[in-house]
């Protein structure tokens, strides 16, 4: 039993320990520090996510408890058919997988054009919490003598009084159980919130999920605070009354339990009030100008957002996505943004599907600062729709203490070298993986020839057989900083960051060609305040701001002066910060025909599941 409890608490204790780690790593404890607590206090994004999580949980718990309780009471008096129907329907959210509920709700909200955000998240939480309340209250109601309510009314109580004075007090244990369950489910929910939220409203789970690009120990600090709070509350509620019952304590004071109760009551009232303020706060505002920006996670220095708000007297609603595809899905599902920062091929797709409006370069004072070599690329000729935000290529990051330099000459084929079996990270992305295979085979990465794709598929499945690589997402960054494996396929910007943290690491782009990419800022058709949108683009291209941004994120800046300077100072000698621009075999991704896309997506799933 002790082992089992250890099992539960090991991860929690680990979390707590690493919250005091002085470095960012989640693997090596380098020393004691409180820096993550400090950054927690200053991180408005995390704090507002805490606010959202708590307020959604509190409101959803209150609403679903009331709704669930009255429904359970009503059910016990309803006709049998209705009762069975309602109970069966009620079981659907409990019995069907979270992800199905999430998708159902997402489709619902999308199709009734309900703007996603705090309100939809709240609705969804009420939706999946209420059934739990009903299932825990209903049996209690059933066990109440049918005549109890009659008796109360017989004695002069109105139906409402009968409910509040007799029935509810009698079923209290069930109500409390349901409430607790609802709160637990709501506060811990990720899947449903992830699908139904929007407009920059994020709860803790979503922050944690999006923060995986660069592991952010601030989250650990937050968890530690949460854990401590829970223990304090538990102590106050469970243990304090026990102590109060002891003789020696009794003599000291008398009414501790009552006091505790009061404090608790007060605290919950405060929580509700706080939640309502939150709720109100999100729907107030809107008097000033707003700009909605949608960017990849961990892809900006957030101080720039505040600076922009200050300079242009507006409000920036900043939201993040974890891949171009999820961004596209979100936009397709009806989310409206002013500025999006997608990659090249996605820019082409959005432009083709008429989602973008042209950028008026005469409004951009700083457009001339952009490196000419990355302008006017095939995915967006003349930069009609997009202005570069960051750029780079894809290459192999290797541990120079493990990988022999001579092996590198094989180009991408090194990724199939059995000497490095179980020692390789691949990037869990269909397009990037196929790019590697296609380039290794000497094809274009934008091929539309299915037989070439088939060959690439064979290359990849052969690779899987030979070296058994691990397909990872952005956690590759932290893993390589910790030096867990010898090689990894990474974006140049991430490589630059990893190399700055781990000096054994080197970056190399194979001669046989790789993928060059540009992430660009685009203005959507939904954007009304185009002047402000142009201001934002221009703002990001300003020398000072671009410098702050590139330094924090580690990706290559599109602003020439900044790029030159940073590559000679902060990232001096860091080959990943200066992607090569002269290899004719390097290509940009282009928009893929849906049929080809589907074809390679299926091949990729095959590779992964083989």
């Amino acid at each position: 039993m002790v082992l089992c409890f250890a099992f539960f608490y090991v991860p929690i204790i680990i979390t707590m320990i690493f919250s005091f780690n002085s470095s960012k790593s989640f693997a090596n404890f380098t020393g004691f520090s409180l820096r993550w607590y400090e950054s927690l206090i200053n991180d408005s994004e995390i704090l507002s996510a805490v606010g959202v999580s708590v307020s959604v949980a509190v409101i959803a718990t209150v609403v679903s408890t009331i709704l669930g309780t009255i429904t359970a009471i009503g059910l016990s008096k309803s006709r049998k058919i209705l009762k069975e129907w309602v109970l069966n329907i009620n079981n659907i959210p409990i019995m069907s997988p979270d992800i199905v509920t999430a998708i159902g709700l997402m489709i619902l909200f999308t199709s009734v054009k309900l703007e996603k955000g705090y309100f939809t998240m709240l609705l969804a939480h009420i939706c999946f919490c209420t059934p739990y309340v009903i299932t825990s209250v209903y049996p209690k109601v059933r066990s109440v003598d049918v005549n109890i309510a009659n008796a109360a009314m017989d004695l002069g109580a109105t139906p409402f009084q009968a409910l509040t004075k007799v029935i509810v007090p009698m079923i209290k244990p069930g109500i409390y159980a349901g409430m607790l369950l609802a709160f637990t489910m709501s506060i811990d929910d990720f899947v449903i919130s992830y699908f139904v939220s929007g407009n920059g409203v994020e709860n803790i789970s979503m922050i944690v999920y999006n923060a995986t690009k660069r592991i952010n120990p601030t989250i650990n600090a937050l968890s530690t605070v949460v854990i401590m709070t829970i223990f304090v509350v538990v102590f106050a509620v469970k243990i304090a009354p026990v102590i109060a019952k002891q003789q020696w304590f009794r003599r000291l004071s008398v009414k501790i339990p009552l006091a505790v109760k009061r404090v608790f009551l007060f605290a919950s009232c405060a929580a509700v009030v706080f939640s309502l303020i939150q709720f109100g706060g999100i729907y107030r505002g809107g008097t000033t100008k707003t700009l909605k920006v949608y960017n990849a996670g961990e892809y900006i220095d957030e101080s720039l957002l505040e600076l922009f708000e200050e300079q242009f007297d507006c409000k920036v609603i900043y939201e993040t996505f974890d891949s171009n595809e999820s961004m596209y899905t979100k936009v397709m599902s009806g989310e409206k943004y002013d500025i999006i920062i997608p990659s090249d091929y996605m820019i082409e797709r959005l432009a083709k599907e008429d989602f973008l409006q042209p950028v008026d370069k005469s409004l951009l004072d700083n457009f001339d600062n952009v490196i000419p070599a990355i302008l006017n690329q095939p995915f967006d000729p003349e930069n009609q729709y997009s202005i570069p935000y960051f750029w780079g290529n894809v290459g192999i990051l290797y541990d120079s203490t493990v990988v022999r330099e001579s092996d590198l000459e094989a180009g991408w084929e090194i990724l199939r070298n059995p000497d490095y079996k179980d020692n390789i990270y691949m990037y869990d992305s269909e397009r990037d993986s196929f790019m590697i295979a296609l380039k290794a085979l000497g094809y274009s990465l934008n091929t539309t020839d299915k037989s070439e794709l088939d060959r690439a598929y064979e290359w990849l499945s052969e690779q899987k057989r030979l070296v058994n690589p691990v397909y990872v997402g952005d956690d590759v960054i932290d893993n390589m900083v910790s030096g867990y494996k010898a090689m990894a396929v990474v974006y140049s910007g991430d490589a630059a960051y990893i190399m700055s943290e781990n000096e054994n690491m080197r970056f190399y782009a194979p001669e046989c060609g790789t993928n060059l990419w540009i992430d660009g800022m685009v203005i959507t058709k939904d954007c009304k305040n185009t002047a402000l949108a142009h201001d934002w683009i221009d703002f990001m291209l300003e020398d000072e701001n671009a410098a702050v941004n590139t330094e924090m994120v580690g990706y290559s800046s599109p602003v020439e002066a900044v790029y030159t300077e940073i590559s000679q100072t902060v990232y001096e000698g860091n080959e990943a910060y200066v992607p090569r621009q002269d290899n004719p075999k390097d290509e940009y991704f282009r928009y893929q025909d849906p049929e080809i896309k589907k074809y390679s997506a299926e091949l990729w799933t095959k590779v992964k599941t083989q």
Partner: protein
Amino acid sequence: MNTSMKPLIELKNITKTFDDQQILKGVSLNIYEKEFLTLLGPSGCGKTTTLRIIAGFDEADDGDLLFDGIEISKLPPYKREVNTVFQKYALFPHLNVFDNIAFGLNIKKTEKSVVQQEVEKMLRLVGLSGFENRDVTSLSGGQQQRVAIARALINKPKVLLLDEPLGALDAKLRKEMQFELKKIQQEVGITFIYVTHDQEEALSMSDTVVVMNDGYIQQIGSPTDVYNEPENRFVAQFIGESNIIEGKMIRDCLVFFDDFEFECVDKGFKDNEEIDVVLRPEDIDIVEPQCAKLQGVVSSIVFKGVHYEILVETKYRNYLIHTTDYHEVGRAVGLTFGPEDIHVMWKSF
């Protein structure tokens, strides 16, 4: 009884259907002040439904319900001047004895001191003084019963409805409570409407007994009336034990059954009308065979404490007889009864 008085509650042709099943098929009944009225009948006869309609928990489909001359069928239960003692008491488990009893007064926002006084008075009335702070779930059945009565009476209703209140008690306690209930009724001087399926309970406590069956009222009358003058076969069978014999009314005061003519006191039937005859077991005497028209053989004898229960087999049927004398099984006997012991009823269909 007092038919000259104005009735307190009037039920006029009440009907009620649950799930396609007609429970009440037209019930009309007058209930008077200070009356102890019992609705008696087998389970499913509609007696509890009648009570619930009076209390306001169920609404009649059709018919009128008048209280003090005013139509109240749409009035919710909490606005009616009646209170109920429930079958399983329906005490509030989260409240103690005091708070259970004080519930009605607290709902009316009565002053605390008054509540205190009234509750104490009620506890004295039901003999539970000193139990104020007890948890109701820790009380015995009889004690819970008393709390339920006190809880209802404290509201000073004009009518107290009791739904099989003694059903859950053991035989001895039941007897005690019967007396107690009657005593309380006389003390508070209000109408009691009492529902039971136990004919003994009904006969010993009531001023008026209403015998119900199959959604109809079969007979209304004093306990003596319904016992001695059952109006039909059902009433005769349900109340007490009886020998029911099919026969023919030759003319007034002369009835024919089992091959013989008997003198009786019943009149008002058509000549030669088919009728039922009731002979109560205790009204039949066992005599020497030659002294009686009906003759038979003792087929069984069971000692019942106060009397013997004897079955005598005659030519047409077995007669049930209660007597204090012992008669051996197998002995030939004669059966006699006086004209006033014969009760003639309409044949029921």
